[in-house]
């Protein structure tokens, strides 16, 4: 009975995180498009680990993303990058830049968010990047992607513990 309840809880948890992530994506895409009227630009690249990678249960892994910023020429801008794991938002990385003529400032950040791998079969990581103009309060949306990782048992666990964890739905 307890086993059935645990499995049911796992399924509900996975479904709810999926729903939260999807809703977040829809909300983010409703903002304005970047690059209009000499607006700021943030190019995101090299998001790692790559989609469908395996991650170890109960571990801390770095979610790494590289961003190239191009500030606005007309107003001060705050760039945000946020990671959420299974719907739980981590603290935002913030980069503020003042208005500067095009080509006078080149900035890039290699951001590593260290996140905890929960005990689920899959781990859903969303990375959201956007910017807000300080004067006009306009929102530029640059990135909103979601990666799915396969959670595996730790190699330090014995074979029978791994079997139980798999059976209970704590890893794939």
């Amino acid at each position, binding site marked *: 009975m307890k086993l059935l309840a645990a499995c049911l809880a796992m399924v509900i948890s996975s479904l709810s995180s999926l729903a939260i992530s999807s809703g977040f994506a829809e909300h983010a895409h409703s903002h304005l498009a970047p690059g209009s009227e000499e607006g700021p630009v943030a190019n995101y690249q090299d998001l790692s680990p790559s989609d469908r990678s395996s991650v170890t249960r109960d571990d801390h892994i770095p979610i790494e993303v590289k961003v190239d910023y191009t500030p606005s020429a007309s107003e001060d801008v705050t760039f945000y990058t946020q990671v959420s794991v299974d719907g739980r938002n981590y603290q935002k*990385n913030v980069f*503020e830049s003042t208005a500067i003529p095009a080509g006078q*400032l*080149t*900035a890039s*950040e*290699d951001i*590593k968010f260290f996140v905890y791998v929960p005990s689920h079969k899959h781990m859903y990581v969303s990375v959201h990047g956007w910017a807000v103009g300080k004067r006009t309060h306009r929102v530029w949306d640059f990135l909103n992607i979601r990666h799915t990782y396969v959670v595996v048992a730790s190699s330090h666990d014995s074979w029978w513990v791994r079997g139980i964890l798999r059976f209970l739905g704590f890893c794939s």
Partner: protein
Amino acid sequence: MPADTIVSNIDAEIERLQEAKRTLSPTRSTPSKNGKMSAVQRTALLNRRLQTTVDLPRLFSAPDGPGGAVSDGVAVTAYGQGQLSGVMFTVPAFSEITVDLDIKMMVVTPADVVELSALIRSLLDASHQAIYDEIQHTDISGGASFFGFFSFGASASYSDTKRRMDSWGLSETNQQTIVNAMMKLANTLNDFSYHGTIFNRDHDFSVSGNLFGIVMDCTITQQQSSTQVRILAPLPSVKGTDGTSLPTVDPLYPGKV
């Protein structure tokens, strides 16, 4: 021109004026009977006045300043820790960021400062080189001995910097070489770039801060032309609003200092 020479010149001018006044006074004190000067007296007075030349620029020249006693030189007009306006970082909890920044600014960049510092060092004798090397380990130098070379953390006039260069044992030619090198670096749009990692992995709170660095403003005067130049020290630091330094993994500017 040395300061005592200028002072003696001014004294000479004052004496000459007093002499001219003494010469002119009897003429004024002996007018004609009807209170008017005769034509002969007037001509004599005009002749005397024409002979008495008053060199105003020399009389009113400041012993220190552009166009003054020190015609070619450097004055430190401002010195201190400056904030690089333009960017601000907030590193979230359990994370780290590696920053690459490249800004075009009207400053003498740390790379140029390193070259200038090496030039000055090469002009010093061995005993002064040891002292010069020690300066770069102080906080106020910002990682470059050049910043302690002129004033060591305070504003300094042309005379002060001149005396300071004399105390380093530099000849007039060598001093001129340094001023020339600084003049070449002025008024160019330079790339200010740095690279560094801010490590906040072990903390459950976010840290935010701006980039700070030692800045020195100078006025360089050379042959009647004066130029303002801002010089940035090689070792910037990332500091929060409360003044605490953010935990950088390595000093910024790796391999350039």
